[in-house]
C-alpha cells in the first residue's frame, strides 16, 4: 500500500514539525491523551438539529416575509451546520501547541477581516460595517475577532501567570484596558455592534478573573465599561429607545418596543406544551428576525414551557461539560481558552434568551448553534471542537486536588497516568 506509506511520511513530518514547535516555545502542561468528552459533540449536534428543525418549520413564513423560496433558509442553515462540523473536525485536529505559538497569525487574520468589513462596500439593506462579502457569501468579522481575542488573551494571561505578574497593574491591567478601548472603538464605534462588544468584554473579564486578576481591578474595568456603555447608549437614538423599551415594556407596543412586545407574546402564547411544530403564527412576520435573534421566542411558541426548559437544559448540560473540562486542566493556557469559550457561548445564550424573556434589553445577539447565520455557527462549533480536543487531556478530578498530591510538580499529572486506559476521564464514558 503505497498510499499508507505516503500518509505515514506526511504524518511523521507533521509530528516532527510540532515537536519542533513544542520544543521551541513553552511546552503545554498536558496529561496523557485519552478519550475526549463526546457529550460536547452530542449536545452541539442536538442544538444544531433544533435550529435546523425550527428554521425548516418556519420556512413558509420566512418565504413570505423575505420573498424567497420555502426551504431557502433551511438549506443555507444546513450548509452552515455542515461547515460548522468541518470546523469542529479541523479544530480537533490542529495540535494544541499550534494555537499557543501561532496565535499572532489568528490575531492578524482577525484584524484583516475587520479591516475588510469596514473598507469593503456594504449591503444597502444592512448598512453596518460588520460583514465581509465575497460573492454570495458573507462573513461576520466579529466572530473571528472573538475567537482571536480568546486565544490571544489566554496566551497573554498564561504567560503573565508564569511570570508571576498576574497581579501587576502595568503588566496585565494596562494592556487589557488598552486593548479593550481599541476593540471598543472598532466594534462599537465603527461597526456599531454593542452586543458583540459586550460579549467580548464578558469573555475578557471572565478570563482575567479566572486567571487570578484582583477583583478590584476588574471592578475598575467594569466601571470604565459602564461609562462607555452609557455614552454609547445616549449617543445612539435606537439604543436609547431599546433601553427605554426595556424599562417600560408595554408603553409602546407598536413603536420601538414592537420586537420586545412581540417576543413576549410569542413566548407567552406558547403555553405549557406549545402550539406544535408547524403552528407558529408569530413567525409570520409578527416577530422580527424570527429565524435569527428571535428564534428562541418562536421555539417557545411552538414547544411551550416544556420545550423551553428542555432546550435550556441542553444548553445547561453543554455549559456544564465545558466547565468540567476547564476545571480539570492544569495548563493555564488551555484552561483559559476553555473558560473563554465557555463564557462566549454561555453569555450569548443568556443575553439572547434573557432578552426574549424580557429580562434584558434587546441586543443583536444570536442564539449559538440555533439561530440562522453561517459565521456564528461555524465559529461556535469550531470553538467546541477545540474544547473537544482539549478534553482529551483532562484529569479525572478538578486540578486543585491534584495540586495537593503533587506538591508543586506541575509538568505531568502522575496520579492520573496510572488509570488512563478507559474513557472515565470524560463524563460521556462514565455515565453510560
Amino acid at each position, binding site marked *: 500500500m503505497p498510499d499508507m506509506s505516503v500518509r505515514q511520511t506526511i504524518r511523521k513530518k507533521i509530528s516532527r514539525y510540532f515537536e519542533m514547535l513544542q520544543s521551541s516555545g513553552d511546552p503545554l502542561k498536558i496529561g496523557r491523551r485519552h478519550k475526549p468528552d463526546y457529550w460536547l459533540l452530542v449536545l452541539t449536534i442536538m442544538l444544531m438539529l433544533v435550529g435546523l428543525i425550527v428554521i425548516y418549520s418556519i420556512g413558509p413564513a420566512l418565504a413570505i416575509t423575505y420573498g424567497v423560496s420555502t426551504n431557502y433558509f433551511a438549506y443555507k442553515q444546513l450548509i452552515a451546520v455542515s461547515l460548522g462540523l468541518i470546523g469542529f473536525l479541523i479544530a480537533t485536529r490542529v495540535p494544541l501547541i499550534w494555537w499557543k505559538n501561532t496565535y499572532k497569525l489568528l490575531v492578524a487574520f482577525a484584524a484583516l477581516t475587520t479591516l475588510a468589513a469596514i473598507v469593503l462596500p456594504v449591503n444597502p439593506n444592512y448598512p453596518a460595517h460588520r460583514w465581509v462579502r465575497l460573492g454570495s457569501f458573507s462573513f461576520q468579522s466579529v466572530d473571528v475577532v472573538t475567537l482571536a481575542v480568546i486565544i490571544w488573551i489566554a496566551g497573554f494571561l498564561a504567560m503573565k501567570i508564569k511570570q508571576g505578574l498576574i497581579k501587576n497593574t502595568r503588566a496585565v491591567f494596562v494592556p487589557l484596558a488598552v486593548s479593550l478601548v481599541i476593540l471598543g472603538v472598532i466594534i462599537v464605534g465603527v461597526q456599531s455592534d454593542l452586543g458583540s462588544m459586550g460579549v467580548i468584554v464578558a469573555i475578557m473579564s471572565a478570563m482575567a478573573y479566572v486567571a487570578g486578576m484582583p477583583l478590584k481591578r476588574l471592578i475598575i474595568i467594569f466601571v470604565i465599561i459602564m461609562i462607555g456603555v452609557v455614552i454609547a447608549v445616549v449617543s445612539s437614538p435606537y439604543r436609547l429607545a431599546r433601553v427605554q423599551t426595556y424599562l417600560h415594556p408595554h408603553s409602546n407596543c407598536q413603536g420601538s418596543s414592537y420586537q420586545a412586545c412581540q417576543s*413576549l407574546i410569542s*413566548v407567552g*402564547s406558547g*403555553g405549557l406544551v406549545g402550539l406544535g411544530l408547524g403552528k407558529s403564527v408569530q413567525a409570520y412576520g*409578527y416577530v422580527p428576525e424570527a429565524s435569527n435573534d428571535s428564534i428562541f421566542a418562536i421555539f417557545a411558541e411552538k414547544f411551550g414551557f416544556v420545550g423551553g426548559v428542555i432546550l435550556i437544559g441542553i444548553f445547561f448540560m453543554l455549559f456544564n461539560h465545558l466547565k468540567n473540562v476547564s476545571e480539570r486542566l492544569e495548563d493555564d493556557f488551555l484552561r483559559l481558552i476553555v473558560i473563554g469559550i465557555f463564557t462566549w457561548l454561555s453569555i450569548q445564550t*443568556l443575553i439572547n434568551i434573557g432578552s426574549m424573556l424580557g429580562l434584558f434589553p434587546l441586543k443583536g445577539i444570536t442564539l449559538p448553534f440555533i439561530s440562522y447565520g453561517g459565521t456564528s455557527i461555524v465559529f461556535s462549533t469550531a470553538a467546541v471542537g477545540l474544547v473537544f480536543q482539549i478534553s482529551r487531556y483532562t484529569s479525572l478530578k478538578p*486540578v*486543585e486536588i491534584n495540586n495537593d498530591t503533587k506538591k508543586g510538580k506541575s509538568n505531568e499529572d502522575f496520579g492520573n497516568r496510572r488509570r488512563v486506559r478507559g474513557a472515565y476521564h470524560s463524563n460521556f464514558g462514565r455515565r453510560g
Partner: protein
Amino acid sequence: MLSLSQKNLASLKTNRIKLLWGLLVLLIIIFVVRLFYLEVIRFSYYKNAALNDQLKQYQIPASRGIIEAYDNGRIVPLVLNQTFYTVYIDPSIITNISKTANDIYSVIGGNLKHYMYLMKFKKLQYIIVAHKITQAQNKTLLAFHLPGVGTQSQDYRVYPDGSLASQLLGFVNNSGQGVYGIEQALNKELAGTPGRVKAVTDVNGVPLAANTNNIEIPPKNGKNIVLTINVGIQSQVEQIIKKEYTTTKSQQINAIVMDPYNGHVVAMANYPTYNPANYQNVTNASVYDNGTVSDAIEPGSIMKTLTTPAALNQGVIQPNTNFFDPAHWVVNGFNIHDISIDGGPREQNIASILALSLNTGATWMLMQMGGGQIDKKGIDAWYNYMTQHYRLGRTTGIEQGYEAAGYVPPPNMNDPSIDLRYANTSFGQGLLVTPLQMASALSSVLNGGTYYQPTLVAETISPNGKAIIHQPKILEKNVVGPNIGNEMVPLMQNVVKAYLHGGFSFMNFSPNYIVGGKTGTAQVAKPTGGYYKNTYNGSYIGFVGGSKVKYVICVFNIKPKIPGYAGSFAGQPVFADIVHMLINEGFVSPKP
C-alpha cells in the same frame, strides 16, 4: 514558597470558576422561573394578546348587482362589474426600496419617484399606490413576491353603452358607495351584504391555514335591477335633447317619457351629461344630477294642464264653458295679463285658455274654485289639489338620489299678497316642480285619476335568479274623476292643432295618433328676488297615443338663447322630436 503560592493560585482559579458557574446556574434558574411565569401563569394574557394581533376580521366583498333594462323585449345590461386591483404597500417591511419601486413601476408604470417617496414612510403600514390595475398586471406584480407589496381586488362598474342614462344610473365611488341615481337610491339592494371572515393571519393580514379560531360568514351578493327604461327610447331621447341643446343654445335640457298607467319611467334624460366610467374627470359636478328629478323650477304655463282638470273636477267649469276675458286682472295691486298677443277683452273658452295660454283664464279658473273671485275657499281648494291630488311640494319616492321636493306656497291668508301668489300658481309661477312631478301629475289626470308612484324599477332579480316583478304602487286614487282625462285629451290636442295652424309645421302629426300638449314659458326668478327680464325657461308637457294615451312627455329647456317664447320655440320642438321619434320607431301603435 513557590509551591504554596501555586497551590493557592490553582485553588483560587477553580474557586473562581465555581463562582462563575454559580452565577450561570442562578441565571438559568431565573430563566426557567421566568419562562414558567410567561408561559404558564400568564398564558391566557399572552394568548389573548396574540389573538388580538393575529386574529383579524375581514369583509368578503359582496358582488354588486348589475343594472339592466329592456331593449326591444330583451334584457340588456347597462351596468356591469369588472374586477380590478388596488396596489398597496407596507413601507415598514419593505427592505429594498429601489428594487421594489422599480418592479412596481415596470408592471404598472406611473411615477417611479413617487413610489420611492411613499416607501420612505417607514412608520406607515398601508399606503395605496395604484388603483384599477388589470388582472394580468396583478398576476405579474404578485409574481415578484415583493415583501411589503400587496393587492386587493375591487369590483368596478363598467358601462357597455357609455354615457347612456348616466344621470339616472349614478356611479359607484372608490369606496364602493353608490352616489347619484339608482346606484345611490338602491345602494343597499345593489351592494348586498358583505361576508365576514375572522381568521388568524400573518402580519400582512393574509389568513393562515385552518384554525379553530377562524369564522367565516359568506357574503350575500347584491340584487340585479331591471329598469323600466326602454333602451331604444332612452337613447333616442338623449340624441334629441343633445341636438336641441345645440339648436336652442340652452343651458340644460331635461326630458322624461312616462307610461301614465303604471308610473313606469320609459326614458329620463338630461343634457349635458357625462360618462360614469370616467366620473372623476367631470369638472362641473352639476352634470351628476338627474335634473328631471332633482331640479325643481317654476314650470310656467304647462301648469294650466293641472289647473284646468282641477277646475273641471270641482264642477266649477265645463270643457265648453265660455267666459269673458277682461285681458287683465288686478290682484293685490298687480296687473295679471296674458303673455300672448293681447287681443283685448273678449269672449274666450276653456280650449282657448289653453291654446292661447291665457293667464287671465287660469286666474279666472282659480276664481271659479272660490266664490267668483280669489278667496280662501278657492285658495284652499287649489292648495289641496296641488299638494294632495297632484302631490306637488313633496318627493315622489322614485328610486333616485337627491330627489327634489319642490315648493308650493302655503295658503297663508294673513299674507297680504296671497291672492297674487295663488293667481301666479294657477299659470305656473311662484311654485317649484320637477319635470317628474309634472309628468306624474298629468299622468294621473289622463289615466282616469290614479296617481302611481313614478318608478324606474321593473324587476329585481335575487342572486339565486329569482325575479320579483314590481307591481305599480298607487299613491292616490281619485286625483280627478275618471272622465276628466277624456275631457283633457281633446283640449290638449287642440293646443297642438292651434300651433300647427299658427305655423309650427313640426307639430304636424298623423291623424292616426292622438297628440296633445301645452307650452310653458316660465320667468326665471333671480336669487335676489324678482325675475330676470330676458331669460326664460321653456317647458312643454304633452302626450302621444293611438286609441288612448300611451306616453306622457315632459320637457324642461333651461334658459335657451333663441328669440320667441321659450315654451313654443325651445320646449315644443323637443317634444315634437320625441313624439315623431316614438311614432316613427313604432313605440306607439296607431288607432286601429
